């Protein structure tokens, strides 16, 4: 009987399962044929951690994030945030969408305003919006509509909107996908800096192993569908990280490549 050390876990995923009704033509006539997407997922994330989730395409990464965000209900098991089961979407648990979640009929300013629209002090509200637009370097684009922005600017604007809420958890689904190489690097760096600054629990799904190694305090590798946790690795090395020089990271990188079915790391 030792002393029980209670770890403050911010997000606790317990025996999580998710399946969808299979509607593909050859199974449509069989009732109750279900596709299992997540199988018995158990994870704990600490408060303020940057968690990177890797996995093959279509394995269920987005599904996992959507359940943490409260958009989808688990088939069984539960997701607890600060010990409380998630009832549904909440504004202290902000989701950044893979394909832009900005509202196309609103300007950058109006989109960012969504998260602070209840502030009664208009001066405070204005400065909060300004501050966050400034933070993602979109000053001068306040009155632009999403269709007038580049891919990188869209991500930044959505990030500003999310941060303006001051959420406890930030959930990002492939925030760098579809960006050119340089923009990818730049926005990744900004997300890392932002995280250093505000230290909020941040979940990032990515298909880029280097993203995970550069960013993550904790790296999760999921298997093919139905997704199970194949690897969970806490990274204690500080940042900025150099993948070329850090031996430990290099070994881990090869290991993850192998795990995802590629035998020669590129």
């Amino acid at each position, binding site marked *: 009987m030792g002393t029980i050390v209670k770890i403050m876990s911010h997000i606790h995923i317990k025996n999580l399962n998710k399946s969808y009704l299979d509607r593909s033509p050859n199974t449509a006539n069989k009732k109750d044929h279900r596709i299992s997407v997540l199988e018995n997922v158990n994870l704990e994330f600490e408060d303020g951690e940057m968690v990177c989730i890797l996995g093959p395409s279509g394995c269920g990464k987005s599904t996992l994030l959507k359940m943490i*965000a*409260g*958009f989808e209900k688990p088939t069984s098991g539960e997701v607890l945030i600060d010990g409380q089961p998630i009832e*549904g*979407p*909440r*504004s202290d*648990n*902000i*989701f950044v*969408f893979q*394909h832009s*979640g900005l*509202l*196309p*009929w*609103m300007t950058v300013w109006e989109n960012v305003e*969504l*998260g602070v629209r209840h502030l009664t002090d208009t001066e405070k509200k204005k400065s909060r919006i300004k501050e966050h637009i400034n933070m993602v370097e979109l000053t001068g684009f306040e009155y632009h*509509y*999403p*269709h007038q922005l580049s891919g990188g600017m869209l991500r930044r604007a959505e990030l500003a909107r999310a941060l303006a*809420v001051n959420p406890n958890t930030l959930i990002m689904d492939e925030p760098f996908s579809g960006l050119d190489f340089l923009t990818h690097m730049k926005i990744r760096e900004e997300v890392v800096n932002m995280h250093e600054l505000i230290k909020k629990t941040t979940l990032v799904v990515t298909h880029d192993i280097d993203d995970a190694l550069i960013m993550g305090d904790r790296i999760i590798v999921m298997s093919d569908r139905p997704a199970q946790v194949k690897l969970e690795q806490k990274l204690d090395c500080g940042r900025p990280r150099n993948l070329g020089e850090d031996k430990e990271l290099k070994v881990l990188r090869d290991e993850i490549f192998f795990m995802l079915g590629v035998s020669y790391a590129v």
Partner: protein
Amino acid sequence: MFRKEIILPILTFVCIVIIWELITRYSGWSHQVFPSPLSVLLSLQELASNGNLLKHSVASLFRVSMGFALAVILGLPIGIVLGLSKTAKYLFNPLFQFLRPISPLAWIPLAMLWFGIGDLPAVFLIFLSSFFPMVVSTSTAVESIKPTFFQVAANFNFSRYETITKIVMPAIIPEVTTALRITITIAWLVVVAAEMIAVQSGLGYMILDSRNALRMDYVMVGMIVIGIIGLLLDLIMQLLGNIESTAWGRLSK
């Protein structure tokens, strides 16, 4: 400078007038049956200057605006409700789908019986012609809103009211402006037919009355004016859809 989009349509109309003139000269039909372009032009001038044309056009436009406005005011919210609520959809959609293909003209006998003579039966027929397309296109537009937008709404704790005003209404504007264009055209088609019964004014009445007087030149004037007003109505609806904040749908895709 040769501007195709301006020159070619003019060319088409010039050709038609020439063919028309040739027919009146060489077909052997009397001018009573097939008036010449010039006589129609003179009749147009006559009807325009004695005020008849304006009076009838205004009467038709008044009925169309009333019926159309009523259809939009009722059709939009009902369409939104049907698009958002599965229960409402299953309750009412079959009814609307059933009533929609019935030509408004089939309602003429009942409309006259219920509303007597005057503006009311015509307004009712125009309302019917516009209401169902409005409801159906609105509800389809609502159903096709990307789920992402509703997830954003839930994520930012939107109230029901906010979800409708900040997500649903702006999201359906591109489809609704298209529906308005199509619907006003239908309404304009119907008003002429509606005015051939039970009223003593309007372009439809003018055409019918001229036929009874065997004045085919007046009939043609009526047709030309109907065409021109129809074009203008369509143009107005198109301009409405071009206002920058409402054009996001076309610009973003």
